[in-house]
């Protein structure tokens, strides 16, 4: 049978059209529109006048924008690598168990992941409540001064990062477990025949073979945590919102509270550029370091 290249192209195009249409309408078009919006003084809803680069230049002297950038970076530092490390540690432990026990322990670690963020917020907000929280009674018993965790800038980000890791690491554990199971058992047998110790086995066998999964985990976490909003917003309510600002929170404030659509779009563009740049950098770094290990 002779293949009709033209016809194949046509079929491919027809099959792709629904996806392209939806993708264009719900992603490409809004993204382009966001760029255009960032050069105007538009309110949240409606048209605005062209103002050139003003929305960008004023970010330079914007204190809240500074706070947002630093807090986001701080949160990423507190959550990405520690979160991945915790997940790896737990996955290594769980993988040593077998049968029902493994399923049970895995389920326990995975449980928080199924909770919606509002429930996570309620749980921890009451646990850490300065007057009535369970954690405060523990502090009292240990003779430590009570800490208003979500109301001081010192403890806010570390606490939110800790809760985020507690909440989301179940998913990362699953990824790591899948990765661990994919490592052929023979390699471990060979290693033990060579009298390799546990640490050496981990360093020379598990770690390099698991690296693609680790890199994947780091990338997912990185992108996710740069877009942090829900937890920070919820735990800040009524407290010190402008000291706890992160990028997406600041976009929300500008757009929905101050009715500045154009200025919000400018911050969104900055975040977009940062996420793209950091993702590429992260991808390249993990690729280079990965190939060096093999």
């Amino acid at each position: 049978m002779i293949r009709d290249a033209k016809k194949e192209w046509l079929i491919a195009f027809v099959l792709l059209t629904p996806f392209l249409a939806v993708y264009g309408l719900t992603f490409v078009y809004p993204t382009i529109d966001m760029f255009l919006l960032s050069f105007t003084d538009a309110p949240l809803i409606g048209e605005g006048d062209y103002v050139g680069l003003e929305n960008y230049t004023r970010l330079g002297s914007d204190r809240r924008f500074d706070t947002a950038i630093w807090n986001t970076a701080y949160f990423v530092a507190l959550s990405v690598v520690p979160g991945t490390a915790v997940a790896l540690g737990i996955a290594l432990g769980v993988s040593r168990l077998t049968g029902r026990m493994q399923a049970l322990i895995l389920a326990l670690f995975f449980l928080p992941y199924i909770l919606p963020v509002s429930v996570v917020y309620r749980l921890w907000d009451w646990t850490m409540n300065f007057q009535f929280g369970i954690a405060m009674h523990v502090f009292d018993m240990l003779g430590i001064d009570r800490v208003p965790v979500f109301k001081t800038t010192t403890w806010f980000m570390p606490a939110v990062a800790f809760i985020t890791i507690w909440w989301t690491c179940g998913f990362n554990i699953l990824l790591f477990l899948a990765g661990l199971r994919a490592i052929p058992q023979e390699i471990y047998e060979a290693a033990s025949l060579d009298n390799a110790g546990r640490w050496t086995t981990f360093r020379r066998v598990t770690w390099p073979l698991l690296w693609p999964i680790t890199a994947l985990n780091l990338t997912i976490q990185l992108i996710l945590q740069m877009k942090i909003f829900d937890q920070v917003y919820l735990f800040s309510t009524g407290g010190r919102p402008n000291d706890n600002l992160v990028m997406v929170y600041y976009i929300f404030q500008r757009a929905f509270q101050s009715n500045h659509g154009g200025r919000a779009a400018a911050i969104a563009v900055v975040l977009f550029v940062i996420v793209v740049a950091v993702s590429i950098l992260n991808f390249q770094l993990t690729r280079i370091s990965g190939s060096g290990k093999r």
Partner: protein
Amino acid sequence: MFKLSVLAKAALAATLMSSAAYAEETVVWWDFLGGGDGVRMKQMIADFNEAHKGEITIDATTLEWGVPFYTKVQTAVPVGEAPDIMTYHASRIPLAVDQNLLSEITADDWSKMGLSESDYATATWDAVTIDGKQYAVPLDTHPIVLYYNKDLLAAAGRLNDDGTPMGMDSREGFTETLQALKDSGSVKFPLGSVTADGNFMFRTIYSLMGQQDGELMTDGEFLAGDNAEKLQNSLAVLAEWTEAGLQSTYTDYPATVALFTSGEAAMMINGVWEVPTMTDLHKDGKLFEWGAVELPVIFDHPSTYADSHAFAIPAGDMTAAKRDAVLEVMSWISKNSLFWATAGHIPAYGPVTASAEYKAMEPNATYSPLTENMIFDPKSTLAGIAGPIFDVMSTYFVPTLNGEMDPAEAVEEIKIELNDL
């Protein structure tokens, strides 16, 4: 099968006939009243539906108070998904008008409702007026008041014979009352304060500024002239109470109410909307003897922050018949707002507060004289519940009220940030 289709036809015919005969209007209603007052509003809606059977039905939905409510409204209205009527805070009206979210209540509308300017207090009417036009129908005013535990005050020897707390007329007097409560050793905190929530404390602090005739905004400038100093004075009083261990620290809203109702805090400054909580607990025999009075005069003269719940009609097309139905809803609820007073709020409709039944209601009657001394938010698109001013204030109030930041430094920062909005 035959039977079923006959039934269906009969049902269809009945529906058609009934709608032709009555032309019943369904009014879609959104509110943010989720607490004890929400229960009472649902009762009023049920009463309204009962009284207008076959003519108007209210289809009500309660949404989350604050930011979630207002973000939803400002996106729903422009795309034509808004309700027919919604509750609105008077303090949010300037921003709403700026965003073209509200439909003007015209002179014609007022006369159809049988309501007029003379039915409302000047400050309340003014709060729903922008450039001489009205954009909402005020339902109530809801100030903050001082709740107190009579048993504990009596034990500390600071209760007057008429059952009110002593020392309400000066800073020294009130501090003395707090000190006496502390010395009595019967409470954990003399004053339960929502010190973990700067949004909430804005109400108290703005009241204290008002007691010195301070203004937040003068001709569009924030904290102009000596107003910064007046804000600093207000913060200093509260910081001093914290320093002396006279008020609870890092306490959020629910914890404050819990401290007061469990007797661990002898007094509490909170909105009148907590009145139903106290009334209901007391009725069940779960609460001590309590009272609520106007805030103490810490500075020159009495002054209390208040906001107003009002009814607004979203901008957009609406049939004349539907609009008449909405006007009837606003009119009927306003005129029957005596029941709304059981939610603690002070009804905005004058004839209700002038009635003998209202004057016999307690503790409303004790605190209602404060309507003379009410101040509202500045008229700015930045003001109001869940607005940008609230966030700035909250950020610096929390550390100041808990002894982490000096009041002078806080005022300096607040001024910079406010003028930066």
